[in-house]
């Protein structure tokens, strides 16, 4: 490819970059007990929730930021972050799209995902999170008929305190890690899903995130519970406007699957990765964990990670129940100066537990990417089985791809396989395509999409299309 053309493509601007000017109801930057009380009060939370948050805050104060990841970023000043921001008139929540601020709708228009159309066409209930407060929830009634609870976590704390008390923090304990503790103290919103016994959720649940309002960190808290024999597929997707300052995002996602339950959690992440010098961009420190509590339960994580300046994310499964299954499918693409340290943990505790890990990493530009995974087989996990495949594709000679798979195996009946490869796109593969009249750019795109196929086919249809498009956009101009 002509180098000019390549240059042009490399310098492509972030397509989703724009700022919507909606006045935010923001607390001044800084974190102390009064800020937490403010958040709790603003959310109309009961007393025990505030205590829970404060406990987390005191834990957090005792902890230090982890440094083991293969990431390089300046220390974060947690006192420079504003911990609460909500669109104006939080009391006056819009009940339908007509009531939604037109500016917000415009934001969705610009993204090319008109909410109402998308929701109607895809038959997806969207719990749209604009900044930190749920703005609108659709299809609620249909879900209500089925007995599925799908609402913001704040609503759940108010309306279903017993469920929250029973499950919140049981998968990711308050003191689990630095960012989880911080999240527990200051989380402002997120989704809550409860699927009762024997119910298969009638539609795919989806949340669209947008991070807005400069300098506000977004602290999401998601809790999904599937009772015996229940099933749900949850989609999470993100885009964000262009920013100069780093935005911290420290979310916590907890999944609980009881006997025979199945939770499928899919993510497409396309946050602002920073400009070509790596300036700006989102810091994404996420704790995601699923607990296969029941026998024969199954939790499946699928993620397509293309954005963020820094990604620190390890969706995990605790396989407690007999014959439970954990799955992890991931495509991570980094370009520019992005850094990603991501992977999964599969903790086999119960008998006959199985886990399956497919991780595809593509690094281009001056980015660095690491797969960090743990497969742990406990002494009681008789006949446990794990298969791990992690492949890296390098595009350009300035990027890095790393793998750090940990295996801790304490049972002789376990069978564990791990394979990893690192390579670049073969000249012969490119030549083969080009000799058939396919341009280099298209050939690369084809090869990369083929490389990721194993993961893409795990995504729900809607997401798969978007993921492929995202991948192509992210890698445009990276090859030459």
């Amino acid at each position, binding site marked *: 490819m002509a180098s000019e053309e390549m240059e042009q493509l490399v310098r492509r601007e972030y397509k989703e970059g724009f700022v919507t000017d909606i006045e935010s109801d923001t607390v001044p930057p800084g974190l102390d007990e009064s800020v937490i009380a403010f958040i709790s009060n603003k959310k109309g939370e009961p007393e025990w929730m505030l205590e829970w948050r404060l406990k987390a805050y005191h834990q957090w104060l005792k902890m230090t930021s982890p440094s*083991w990841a*293969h990431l390089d970023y300046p220390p974060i000043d947690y006192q420079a972050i504003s911990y609460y921001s909500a669109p104006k008139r939080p009391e006056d929540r819009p009940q339908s799209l007509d009531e939604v601020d037109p500016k917000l709708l415009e934001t969705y228009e610009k993204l090319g995902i008109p909410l109402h159309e998308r929701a109607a066409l895809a038959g997806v209930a969207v719990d749209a999170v604009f900044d930190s407060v749920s703005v609108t929830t659709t299809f609620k009634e249909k879900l209500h008929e089925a007995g599925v609870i799908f609402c913001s976590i704040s609503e759940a704390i108010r309306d279903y305190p017993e469920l929250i008390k029973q499950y919140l923090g049981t998968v990711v304990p308050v003191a689990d890690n630095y960012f989880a503790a911080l999240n527990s103290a200051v989380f402002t919103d997120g989704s809550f899903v409860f699927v009762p016994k024997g119910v298969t959720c009638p539609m795919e649940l989806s949340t669209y995130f947008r991070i807005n309002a400069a300098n506000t960190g977004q602290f999401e808290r998601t809790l999904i519970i599937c009772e015996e024999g229940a099933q749900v597929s949850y989609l999470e997707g993100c885009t964000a406007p262009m920013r100069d300052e780093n935005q911290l995002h420290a979310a916590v996602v907890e999944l609980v699957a009881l006997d025979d339950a199945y939770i499928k959690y899919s993510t497409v992440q396309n946050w602002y990765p920073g400009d070509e010098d790596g300036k700006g961009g989102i810091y994404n420190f996420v704790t995601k964990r699923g607990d296969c509590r029941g026998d024969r339960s199954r939790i499946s994580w699928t993620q397509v990670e293309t954005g963020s300046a820094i990604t620190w994310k390890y969706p995990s499964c605790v396989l407690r129940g007999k014959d439970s299954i954990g799955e992890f499918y991931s495509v991570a693409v980094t370009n520019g100066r992005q850094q990603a340290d991501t992977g999964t943990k599969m903790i086999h505790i119960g008998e006959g537990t199985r886990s399956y890990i497919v991780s595809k990493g593509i690094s281009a530009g001056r980015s660095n990417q690491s797969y960090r995974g743990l497969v742990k087989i406990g*002494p009681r996990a008789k006949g446990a089985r794990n298969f791990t495949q992690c492949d*890296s594709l*390098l*595009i*350009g*000679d*300035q*990027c*890095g*791809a*790393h*793998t*750090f*798979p*940990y*295996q*801790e*195996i*304490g*049972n*002789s*009946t*376990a*069978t*564990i*396989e*791990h*394979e*990893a*490869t*690192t*390579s*670049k796109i073969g000249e012969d593969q490119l030549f083969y395509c080009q000799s058939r009249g396919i341009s280099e750019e298209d050939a690369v795109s084809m090869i990369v999409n083929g490389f990721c196929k194993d993961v893409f086919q795990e995504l729900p249809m809607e997401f798969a299309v978007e993921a492929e498009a995202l991948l192509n956009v992210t890698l445009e101009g990276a090859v030459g």
Partner: protein
Amino acid sequence: MSDVERQSSEVKAFLDRLAERNVNRGQEPTWIAARRQAGAARFEALGFPTRRDEAWKYTDVRAIARGDFVLTDSAEFSPASAAALTLPIEAYRLTFVDGIFSPALSDLAELPRGVAVLPLSQALAENHEAVGGPLGRLTGVEFSPFSALNTAFVEEGAVVRLAPGSVVEKPIVVQFLSRANAQPVMSHPRILVEAGSRSQATLIEHHVGESEAANFTNLVAELMLDRGAILTHYKLQESPLADLHVASIHVEQNRDSRYTSFNLNLGGGLVRNDLISELNGEGAEANFYGLFYGQGRQHIDNHTLANHNAPRTFSNENYKGILDDRARGVFNGKVVVKRDSQKIEGSQSNANLLLSDRAEIDAKPELEIYADDVKCSHGTTTGQLDEEAVYALRTRGIDEQTARGLLTLAFAGEVMEQVELDAVAERVELAVAGKLPERFNLAGLVEAAMALHDE
């Protein structure tokens, strides 16, 4: 006592031993004294590693930290038992007993021209400046608390110098004997190999001892391969089961050199090996083969690292582990490709066989790659014997226990068939067969092997 207090008292115990030793030491060249001091200071600052250190996540060295080890001056060892322990192979031989050179058990007759094999103490006495340059160049005090400790205590070891173009036909055996002492002894030996361009040699590092021994060996080996040098390095570690063994082996490889390591660990209660190769010149090649067999409560930790610092360098690794009873194995293999080190090929394979429910393996094969034109892969598997293979043997009239024994031997065989020295291969295979659990029907196995051999 708090953790901090305990740790500092453990460190102090070792530093006190050093101070005692220093009083009795004669006049030394200034550079040695300075390094001793630097090593001691570094060790004091670091203390013993804990499981909170990433490199020691799976290995607890408290057995070393809390041990009360003395230094010895005696190289006495019963000639009969030494003969029984020594590898039956025609070789140049240096023997150390608990770190002390034993001229009586060594044989350096008729070394070819251009080849020097001598104890470190002698090399220092003859020309300390020639030692001062290379010693500590690859493994400094910064590497680990144990390398710092070794530097503080350094006094004996093996020095091998190969002139350019020299080819040593017979292997060079460096033998470390561990003696059953009234009080456990520690030693901090060094191995220094300077292989000139196009030189060729085989080095056998052999650790063995009396079965009641319970000593601590903290070895540092530095192997420097100049252009086109070929070095095959066998480390046969059959230390007594109560011995504690920590070793770091650093290799520096210049253009077109080839280093082949056989890291065979059968003995030792607590074993930690760090094997690092710096592939600094184009065409350099490193082969790491490893086998470890743990029983009882043995703990065997192997860390390997291939640093591809130059383009067109190659590394190949194959480690096999067999663990029985409550033994624990650790494998951490790492391949690093530096920026602009293009056209690299690095492959890594690690397979582990668990024979008992209480055995544990912690494996971590890592890749760290900063160049794009590379072919790197790693694979790790852990499991049990293939039931279909057991069945296949049974259909041929071999009973199940014997079949399992044979398959376990065959599992180790994949590494052992790379071994070119029969004496080493036989020794290891017999040891592995001897270690197989009784339920694997050893007697039947030997008979079966004999029968196969006769056919």
